[in-house]
C-alpha cells in the first residue's frame, strides 16, 4: 500500500497502538476486518501529502501466456513499488487481492467497492502490469 517500509512500519505500529487503546477502553468494533479497514485508511492518509504520480493513461496489454516467467524476473520490491504507485482504489484492490488472504466479498467490504468496480480495477491492473512487464523486457518471439 505504501511502497516504503519505514512508513509501513509506522502505520502498522500506530494501528496496533490505537487498537490496544480501544481494546483497553472496551471500544473495539464488532464488525469484522475493522483493523484492516483502519490500517487501509491510515495508509491512504500517510500518502496524502506525498508527491502524487501524474495521472497517465498507462498502456495495457493482454495477458501473455508466458507472463509467469516475466514476473519471476521481477524483484519483489519492484512489484511493491508498482502496486503502491497505483491510484486508489486500484491500489487497495490490488494490494488486498494479491495478499491472497481475503475472498472477493471481503475485499468489496474492506475497500468499500462494488463488484463491477473491483472487477474493472483488477482487470485493468493486470493489463497495465503486463504492459509494464513487456516494456521492461520484451519477450522473445513477441511480435
Amino acid at each position: 500500500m505504501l511502497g516504503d517500509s519505514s512508513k509501513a512500519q509506522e502505520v502498522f505500529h500506530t494501528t496496533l497502538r490505537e487498537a490496544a487503546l480501544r481494546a483497553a477502553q472496551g471500544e473495539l468494533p464488532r464488525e469484522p476486518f475493522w483493523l484492516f479497514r483502519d490500517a487501509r485508511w491510515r495508509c491512504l492518509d500517510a500518502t496524502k501529502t506525498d508527491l502524487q504520480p501524474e495521472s497517465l493513461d498507462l498502456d495495457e496489454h493482454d495477458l501473455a501466456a508466458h507472463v509467469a516467467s516475466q514476473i519471476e524476473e521481477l524483484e519483489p520490491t519492484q512489484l511493491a513499488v508498482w502496486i503502491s504507485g497505483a491510484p486508489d482504489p486500484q491500489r487497495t484492490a490490488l494490494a488486498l487481492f494479491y495478499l491472497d488472504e481475503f475472498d472477493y466479498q471481503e475485499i468489496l467490504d474492506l475497500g468499500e467497492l462494488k463488484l463491477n468496480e473491483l472487477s474493472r480495477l483488477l482487470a485493468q491492473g493486470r493489463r497495465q502490469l503486463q504492459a509494464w512487464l513487456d516494456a521492461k523486457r520484451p519477450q522473445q518471439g513477441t511480435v
Partner: protein
Amino acid sequence: MKMLRLLRRQRALLNCAPISHDRLADSSMRAAVARADDSDEFRNQQNFDRAVAELVHLIPIPPETAEWFSEKDLAVGSKWTWRKMARNPAVLAISIAVVVIAGVSVFQVLSGLNEFPGSATARKLLTVAASTRPVMLDPVSTEAETLSDLFFMKHGLEHYDVPAEFADFRTIGCRVFEDEESRRIAQIWLAEKRMQLFLFPAERNPKTGAVLRFPGWRYVHQEGWAGAVTERNGVCFMAALRGNEKDLASYISKTTAQ
C-alpha cells in the same frame, strides 16, 4: 466456452476469481469459475495472479514488524494451577453445590438407616415421655411383666407384653391412652432411672394389613431422650429414658441387640 459469451456478472466474478481454489466463496463464483476453467484467457489470468501473489509474499517486511508475526507466543499464558482453578467462581459455585448435594444425600442415607416401621411414632412418644408427670399415671407398684395381664384384662390389649429385658423392674405407675390416630398406647413408669416403657401397635402395610416387622432393637432420639424399640407379635415396645443410646444399651442383652 469463450469469456465473451459469459454474462456480465459472471465476467465480473471471473476477474475477481480467487487465486487459491479454496477461497471460492459462493456458488455464483464457483459456477463462473467452473464454466471458464477451460478458457485460455482465464488460465492466463490465473497463472498471472498466482505468479504475482507468490512475488507479493516475497516482499520484505521490516524486521520490527515481522516480529509481530513470529510463531512464538507474544504473551505467554499463565500456568494452569489447581489453586487458580479452585478460585474460579464457576468452579467454586459448582464445588459448593456438589458438597451441599452430597451432604444432603449422606444425611438422607444415614437418616434412612435409622428409620424403621414405627420410628415416627416412637419419636412422638419420646416427646410424650418428656412431658409426662407421675401424677398423670395410675399408681401401680409391681413388676413390669405383670402389667401385661392388666392391659389385656382391663383394656383388651393383646400381646402388650413387656420384654424379658425389662420384665423384672418395679413400676411406679401406668396408663393407657389414645394418640391422635386413635391408637391405644400403654405407658409404664419404672422406678429404675425414671425409665418409661411404651407399648403401641406396630405399623402395618396399608394395602395388605400385614405387620411391618423389623428384627432386634432399634434406637431413636428426640429432645435429649433415647428410646430402644423392638417389635413382637404386632406390638412395638419402647424403653425410653433421658440420656443416650449407651444408657439403654446396658439393659438390652447382647444376644438380641443389633
